[in-house]
């Protein structure tokens, strides 16, 4: 107990001092958390403040954010060639930067990271592992990570997951994400190692192989993409598997839109206690976000600063408006190739300016991710988002999971192409009525053969990895 207090103090002092944290100390804290759970069955009463931070007070929130921004900018001005130039051009003093002065620094966009990755690398770090974005939204970005940050993220992730009962020593986590997403895989493996849990990394393998691991393999947690989850639901139904066949207790998904219909089906199919829909992005780890019970998206503002900028003006968005999420991970949480004001191009709608009443109301929130800004459509004066389309398609009676479609706007009207089987049993009028009920005025509905469905919209589940067993 005393040494746990000392470890917490060491970590806190490291944070206040703005220096790299001792990752071994953090790993020991995870051990302390496990011992606490073993003895008491649950963490102490202050656990929410421990994992979410003391952010109910907006002043404390701004104070922490200002310090984080100043610390991060000061380091980047010294160590990152890209930001040395950018800050100099903006005429700001990094160590004295205020939150309301951030607008003077242009946002960083993905193309800059893709074209000039070496300029983002900090001079005071040693590279250890490279990770790539999956490239579903364009040319993949390659991001170098230091050993320190990999250890740090695993430690922070494990501590958070253990205290929230998202990861137990008795768990086996089965991971289905692209094998090139090494950061995500390392985070899963590292978190499981620290928590004493098992970890099975399979990748995007044929669904039957995945189901074998989820049944006989005893997996209790699955981490994957919504589109792959959809394939698993379909495959499990085909094999006649039900909730009693799966020891799963949690499914965590991210990276794509999880529709309510698919979520409901996954609950019924796998019999899990929870399906968490979280946000993560290679470029801005460890700033993540999770979805609360009321469907809000809560970004983790302990480790970074999150801005919501108006899509048209680039200024802070107003309540109720659509906004792109711009994230600055703080030092010492991001080490090797940090970004500053990184425009994720993920679109959210800001919530009304009212107090939150959800279970994580101490953290600020926005609406759920609606899709990428560059994929928004404007039809009949209305904005059509990727989420709207995915939710509408996946809610079709045929349950066409994962939802495949191609949407475009011609002459201000929405055109939608779907696989033939998606609207099986429905007349065109019925199909239009279905979409109208989901707020979509589909002017033209085109059907394509099912064999061409994959070409309509790339999904992460398309990043198939072959196995000899599947080929035999």
């Amino acid at each position, binding site marked *: 107990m005393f040494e746990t207090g000392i470890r917490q103090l060491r970590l806190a002092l490291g944070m206040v001092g703005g220096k790299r944290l001792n990752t071994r100390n953090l790993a020991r804290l995870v051990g302390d958390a496990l011992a606490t759970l073993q003895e008491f069955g649950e963490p102490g009463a202050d656990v929410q403040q421990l994992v979410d931070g003391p952010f109910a007070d907006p002043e404390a929130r701004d104070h922490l954010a200002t310090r984080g921004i100043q610390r991060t900018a000061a380091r980047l001005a010294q160590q990152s060639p890209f930001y040395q130039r950018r800050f100099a051009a903006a005429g700001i003093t990094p160590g004295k930067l205020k939150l309301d002065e951030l607008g003077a620094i242009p946002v960083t966009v993905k193309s800059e990271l893709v074209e000039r990755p070496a300029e983002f690398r900090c001079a005071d770090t040693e590279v250890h592992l490279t990770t790539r974005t999956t490239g579903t939204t364009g040319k993949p970005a390659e991001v170098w990570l230091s050993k320190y940050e990999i250890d740090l993220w695993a430690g922070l992730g494990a501590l958070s997951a253990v205290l929230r009962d998202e990861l137990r020593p008795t768990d086996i986590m089965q991971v289905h994400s692209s094998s090139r997403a090494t950061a995500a895989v390392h*985070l899963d493996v590292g978190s499981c190692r620290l928590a004493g849990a098992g970890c099975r990394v399979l990748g995007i393998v044929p669904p039957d192989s995945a189901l074998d691991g989820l049944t006989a393999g005893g997996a209790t947690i699955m981490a994957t993409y919504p589109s792959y989850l959809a394939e698993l639901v379909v495959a499990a139904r085909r094999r006649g598997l039900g909730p009693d066949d799966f020891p799963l207790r949690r499914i965590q998904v991210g990276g794509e839109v999880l529709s309510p219909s698919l979520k409901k089906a996954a609950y019924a199919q796998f019999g899990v206690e929870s399906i968490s829909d979280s946000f993560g992005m290679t470029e801005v780890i460890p700033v993540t976000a999770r979805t609360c019970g009321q469907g809000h998206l809560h970004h983790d503002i302990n480790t970074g600063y999150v801005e919501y900028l108006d899509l048209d003006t680039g200024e802070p968005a107003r309540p109720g408006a659509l906004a792109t999420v711009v994230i600055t991970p703080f030092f010492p949480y991001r080490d090797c190739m940090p970004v500053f004001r990184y425009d994720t191009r993920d679109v959210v709608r800001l919530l009304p300016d009212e107090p939150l009443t959800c279970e994580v109301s101490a953290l600020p929130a926005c609406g759920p991710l609606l899709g990428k800004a560059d994929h928004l459509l404007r039809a009949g004066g209305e904005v059509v988002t990727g989420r709207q389309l995915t939710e509408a398609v996946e809610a079709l009676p045929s349950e066409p999971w994962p939802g495949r479609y191609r949407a475009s706007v011609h002459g201000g009207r929405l055109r939608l192409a779907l696989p033939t089987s998606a609207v099986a049993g429905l007349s065109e009028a019925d199909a239009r009525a279905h979409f109208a009920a989901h707020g979509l005025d589909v002017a033209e509905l085109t059907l394509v053969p099912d064999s061409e469905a994959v070409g309509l919209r790339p999904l992460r589940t398309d990043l198939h990895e072959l196995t000899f067993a599947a080929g035999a």
Partner: protein
Amino acid sequence: MADDLVFTTVFELFVAVGGTVVTTVLALFYLRRVRLERPAVGVFNGRDIAVLLCVLALLPTLYVVLAHWALTTFLAITFMASLSIGYRPVVRNQGLLWAGIGLLLGANIWMARTMLGTVLGWQLYWVETSVIVVLGACAVANLYVQGGMRLKHVARFALLLAVYDLVFTAVTPLTNELAQDFLGYPLDPSFGFRLGLFNATLGLGDLLIYSLFVAAAFKAYGRSAARFAMVVVVVFGAVIPATAPLLINFIDARADVVVPAQTFFGPGAFAAYLWLRHRYGRERTMKEFLASDDVVHAVVAATPAVAVEPVPAAPAAASAAIVD
């Protein structure tokens, strides 16, 4: 002289047994009914014993070295901390709690300064001091046991204290010096009483380890084990040390009895622990204890805790699918 020895021995026996029984029974009563707030992360472990022992080794030296005003301040802060933490869940009105603590400690300082000219004054002073000490020992024992301290830890701690007490009583007479130094000063960390010229006392540290032993035995193995532990505590912690002066002359010139009680208690406690472990096996966790019928389930709910340790943040999701 021989009559004095018999009288002081019997007197010491009554004080020691009385203090031991009152404190341990109160600690058990508390453990069954009151839940203390605990930090989000942290459970008592073996290394914490080493920390406690280091503190224990340094404290007496500090007591001797410090000026009396500084020592009184230090003791007042220590008692305030233990009483406020321990009785926050019991006295829900925080104003009342702090007023009570202030009254207890203030009265003790006042009595020590003004009432020690008569035997009755001494007796009132000891009764008041003993109330503070019993409440403090009960609170701290529960803080540790409810924080995850196990019987194994207590038994090892007692064994180490046996060596410590022997060294600082027989080899380096620091304990004797302390007993004399504290006598008649405010907030003497002892349970005691006075009859005529004789003061009989039992140290706060002794009461704490006895309460820990009984409470940890109860938490670990239940009622039978607690009864057994209580017998061990009374015999090895009170009866044998109190009657020891009849055999070993540890009486100083003022006839204040100073006996290394832990030297008798430590081996007995450790042997008792080994027997309990042999008989009952693995100790219950706090979770298992709280789920048992050894707990009175209409517990007094704890009020919100003091400010959390300044700990760092953690990312929202351990293993979110991280993508572009």
